[in-house]
């Protein structure tokens, strides 16, 4: 699994969510704990200060009692005794407060007990001192002693109180320190976890919003798909059906009914209902097809006719495929197409084919007439004339001989014309074998055919190495013969013909000259000569049947040679073109596919 899939798996997402939740609760727990700690700390502080205050108050009360007592002793004003009188009550109050306050601290409790004893003792001494003062028997020293004792106890009380206060303060400080430590760490920890959670939340948000986008888009696509499928059947003129083979239940799409000319779902989906609309002579196709599916597990395409509800005849094509769903249930799904238009086009094409074949047959028999029945009488004419001019030379007049010569020449021209026509009509593609041939051999053969003319005119033919291509050998050989023959025939008088044959691959610019198959390589073979050339304006017309650029008495010819070349090249899905430069020469370019 790569990183991406890890990040996008829903398991990962869930675990992130769970982790985040846990972290959140954890943080909450810690925060809560610390809040409580803080509260406790505050409370502890308050508590300590309460104790402190209470102790101070106690101290104050005692001192007030003390000063009251002293005041009374000095002034004998009973109003000074008020604090002393009220003292014990307040002190008791204080003690009870203190007791409840320090209930947790046993050490303090001990101290408090000691303090209580001291305070009691102090008040006893106060009382004792008052008594001593009130009684006339006491002397100055007794009161003084009493006061001194009282002062000592007061000191002890003070010390005790201080001790207790100190303890409180110490414990407060200690607790404070402890909590401070914890609390100082907490914000940082909380901050980090908060940042991390924030990160996770942001990541989750991004992921979720992305997923949402994807989901939304998928949803939209699905919506369009569903819509288009529904319409596709109508647009494409086909329908879909399903056949649950076990329960023998059929499901027909709405269009199935429409194709038959009925309202959607207007009859129960099934073979019986469907067969109502099948052409009586084709009903067996449906039933036989069904047999094949059930018994032989074959799902051939079926072609049959339908008579729609409105009586119109349509041609249908049915295709099916077996599906096995996740439970192993066999469901046959299929489509029925209304192929009436294609079928009718096919029929008309077949009709045209038959017509063409017929016309071809007629042309072939014309060929036969031309080859045998036209040639024969012509040959006889020529032969018998040659017999006469040979044997009867003594009995025929000079003028007569001259006429015979003209007859012979005319007959010879006719013979050549018929031969060329025959060659032209034989240059077809039908029933010809394309085989890989070394074009160099064909070129050699062509030069062989023309060896006499080549020697007579002292021609030089220079050629590149030609490729090996799949061709109709005799035709390409004829092509070479015709092209080289022309170059030899139309040479500049008195100048030996020089023919250069070059070969290279086609380039893109040349591809645009004719219809090429972009996936195929083409070879370009050029025949350049130094002959008479021709006006470039005639470059296209020289390939037209019977077109000639010269008078027959000057240059004999039938005007068929180049038309044959063009036909041969077209048979091979190639192209031929000509360029001429009067007085300089001509270039014939042949393109052949590899």
């Amino acid at each position, binding site marked *: 699994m790569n990183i991406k899939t890890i990040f996008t798996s829903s398991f990962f997402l869930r675990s992130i969510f769970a982790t985040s939740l846990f972290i959140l609760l954890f943080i909450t727990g810690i925060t809560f704990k610390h809040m409580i700690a803080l509260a406790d700390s505050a409370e502890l502080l308050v508590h300590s200060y309460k104790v402190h205050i209470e102790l101070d108050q106690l101290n104050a009360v005692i001192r007030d009692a003390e000063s009251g007592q002293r005041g009374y002793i000095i002034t004998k004003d009973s109003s000074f005794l008020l604090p002393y009188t009220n003292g014990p009550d307040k002190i008791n109050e204080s003690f009870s407060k203190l007791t409840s306050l320090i209930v947790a601290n046993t050490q303090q409790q001990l101290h408090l007990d000691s303090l209580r004893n001291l305070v009691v003792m102090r008040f006893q001494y106060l009382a004792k001192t008052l008594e001593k003062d009130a009684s006339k028997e006491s002397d100055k020293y007794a009161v003084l002693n009493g006061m001194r004792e009282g002062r000592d106890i007061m000191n002890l009380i003070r010390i005790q109180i201080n001790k207790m206060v100190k303890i409180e303060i110490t414990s407060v400080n200690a607790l404070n320190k402890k909590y401070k430590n914890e609390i100082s760490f907490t914000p940082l920890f909380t901050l980090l976890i908060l940042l991390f959670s924030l990160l996770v939340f942001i990541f989750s948000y991004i992921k979720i919003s992305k997923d949402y986008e994807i989901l939304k888009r998928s949803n939209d696509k699905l919506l369009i798909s569903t819509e288009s499928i529904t319409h596709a059947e109508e647009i494409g003129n086909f329908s879909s059906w399903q056949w649950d083979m076990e329960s023998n239940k059929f499901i027909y799409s709405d269009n199935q009914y429409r194709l038959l000319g009925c309202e959607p779902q207007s009859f129960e989906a099934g073979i019986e209902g469907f067969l109502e609309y099948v052409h009586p002579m084709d009903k067996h196709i449906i039933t036989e097809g069904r047999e094949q599916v059930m018994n032989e597990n074959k799902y051939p395409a079926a072609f049959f006719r339908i008579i729609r509800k409105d009586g119109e005849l349509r041609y249908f094509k049915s295709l099916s495929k077996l599906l096995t769903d996740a439970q192993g249930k066999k469901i046959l799904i299929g489509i029925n197409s209304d192929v009436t238009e294609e079928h009718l086009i096919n029929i008309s094409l077949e009709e045209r084919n038959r017509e063409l074949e017929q016309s071809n047959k007629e042309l072939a028999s014309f060929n036969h007439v031309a080859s045998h029945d036209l040639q024969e009488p012509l040959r006889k004419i020529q032969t018998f004339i040659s017999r006469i001019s040979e044997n009867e030379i003594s009995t025929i007049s000079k003028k007569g001989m001259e006429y015979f010569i003209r007859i012979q020449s005319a007959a010879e021209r006719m013979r050549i014309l018929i031969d060329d026509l025959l060659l032209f009509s034989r240059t077809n593609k039908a029933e010809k074998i394309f085989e890989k041939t070394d074009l160099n051999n064909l070129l050699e*053969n062509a030069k062989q055919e023309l*060896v006499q003319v080549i020697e007579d005119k002292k021609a030089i033919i220079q050629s590149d190495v030609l490729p090996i291509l799949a061709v109709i050998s005799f035709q390409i050989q004829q092509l070479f013969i015709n092209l080289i023959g022309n170059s030899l025939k139309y040479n500049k008088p008195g100048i030996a013909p020089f023919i250069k044959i070059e070969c290279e691959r086609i380039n893109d610019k040349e591809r645009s000259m004719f219809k090429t198959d972009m996936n195929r390589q083409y070879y370009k073979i050029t025949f350049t000569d130094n002959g008479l050339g021709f006006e470039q304006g005639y470059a296209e017309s020289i390939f037209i049947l019977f077109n000639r650029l010269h008078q027959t008495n000057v240059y004999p010819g039938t005007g068929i040679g180049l038309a044959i070349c063009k036909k041969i090249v077209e048979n091979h899905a190639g192209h031929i073109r000509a360029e001429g430069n009067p007085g300089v020469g001509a270039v014939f370019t042949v393109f052949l596919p590899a």
Partner: protein
Amino acid sequence: MKLYFKYDIHAACKKIVEEQLNAMKLEYALIGFGEVELQEDISQDLLHQLNTGLKNYGIEIVENSKRILVQKIKDTIVEMVYLEEKLPTTKISAYLAEKLNHSYGYIANLFSDVTYTSIENFIILQKIERAKQLITTSELNFSEIAWRLNYSSVAHFSTQFKNATGITPTAFQRIINKRRNAAGDE
């Protein structure tokens, strides 16, 4: 299965003549090709019997002296053409004159008088036949065949082949191959 043969006609004919002579219990000594020296003269009947026996194999006793010489000329030419390696590089006229011990002029005239064809034509015919044999029975290509038969180039060889037979060596080879394939299919 198909079998291909190469014929050494000289050896075969020699063997046949030997067998025939042995069967007739004639004493002989073989001298050269196409020539046998009998120890004794034999009667016309025996000669006729021998001739009949040999005729079955396409071998004939040549009686006319002129015919004998013409036959010798033919045999010499055949032998020369079918030499294992290569035709002799000396001019054929000189070669024949030397081999047959007559002037070339005499040989040529005699040949055309008796056979109605020129000796050159005969030589060409033999060379072309040899070429056909090499094409059909050996793996040599046309250049090698042309060299063996003393042609100055393949083109020269092809030209003469076509002039003599009307078809190119390539076409000839193709036809023979197709014939063999057709026979193989049967």
